[in-house]
């Protein structure tokens, strides 16, 4: 981070032995925090890529059980996708409202995000419960194991995101738009948008590619 800021001074005295030059010092805490969280998100994406790789390898190994095309409901997945997309948008609105310190729009944006996230979770839970009830649980075949672990891992992330979202609303309610609360809000927005990116991979690879007859 200091690299770009000092690039202009990189002439005759690269090691600053002579005179003391004006140094910008460490980056502001807001940048350091968000950058660290960005690294975490990338490592989370790497973890998801392992689940994707397992699914890609195992998607044909149905062991006499159902194929993807027989159990996936395109309409359900489309509704889930629209929910997550809209929630990403309202989350963006909430973070703009937090930056301009507008409580009403912040609470409204976060509430809508929460409701959309919960609708997504309910739809996914019903899909899982329906599959298990029909005897197509994760232990039925390698394909279903990979399916449940990949989609379930994303669902767990969304559940954690909803809890985090409610925490952020409570913190803004109790502490106001303090600098540390705003940093957490920024990390939350990054987390929520990153989950949406992973869902793009899930619906494309698992449901649309894996659901092809």
């Amino acid at each position, binding site marked *: *981070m200091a*690299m*770009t*800021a000092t690039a202009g001074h990189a002439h005759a005295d690269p090691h600053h032995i002579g005179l003391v030059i004006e140094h*910008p010092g460490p*980056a*502001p*805490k*807001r*940048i*350091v925090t*968000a*950058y660290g*969280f*960005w*690294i975490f998100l*990338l*490592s989370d*994406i*790497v973890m998801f*890529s*392992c689940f*994707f*790789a*397992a699914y*890609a*390898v195992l998607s044909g190994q149905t062991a006499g059980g159902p194929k993807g095309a027989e159990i996936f409901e*395109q309409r359900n997945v*489309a509704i889930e*996708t*629209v929910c997550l*997309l*809209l929630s*990403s*948008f309202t989350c*963006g*609105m909430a*973070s*703009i409202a937090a*930056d*301009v310190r507008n409580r009403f729009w912040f609470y409204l944006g976060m509430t809508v995000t929460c409701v959309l996230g919960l609708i997504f979770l309910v739809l996914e839970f019903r899909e899982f419960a329906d599959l298990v009830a029909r005897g197509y649980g994760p232990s039925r075949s390698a394909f279903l194991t990979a399916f449940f672990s990949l989609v379930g891992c994303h669902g767990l992330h969304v559940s954690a995101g909803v809890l985090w979202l409610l925490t952020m609303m409570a913190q803004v309610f109790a502490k106001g738009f303090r*600098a*540390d609360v*705003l940093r957490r809000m*920024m990390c939350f*927005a*990054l987390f929520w*948008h*990153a989950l*949406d*990116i992973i869902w*793009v*991979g899930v*619906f*494309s*690879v698992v449901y*649309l*590619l894996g*659901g*092809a007859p």
Partner: protein
Amino acid sequence: MSDQTHIPAGHDLAPGEEEQHGVGERILGYVVGLVLALLLTATSFFIAGTDLVWQPSIPVALIVLAIAQMGVHLVFFLHITTGPDNTNNVLALAFGLLVVFLVVGGTVWIMAHLNANMPPMDQIMRMQ
């Protein structure tokens, strides 16, 4: 380390952070992102179920659409751009993508070759 929320010009940007814009411009950015993402999603779902295109092209089209939509999310929602104030974020992303492609590509490649080179299980059992 100060807790300032407004970064002076010439500094780096945190991931998820935009350059200094008005509220209207920022909202417009999210609206554009949402519209593009919805269009790409609708195209994906349409392509997956249609008979109108050459069938072997469908998986390729789905992957291309997914990557395009991830790009839209990165630019319009996460505000990862190619500007000079974003270098660190882009470099971290590039390294993450390298690992992702090594893991996914390597796994699919190796496992496909293993499957092709190994006889089915019942033949192995008969050989013993």
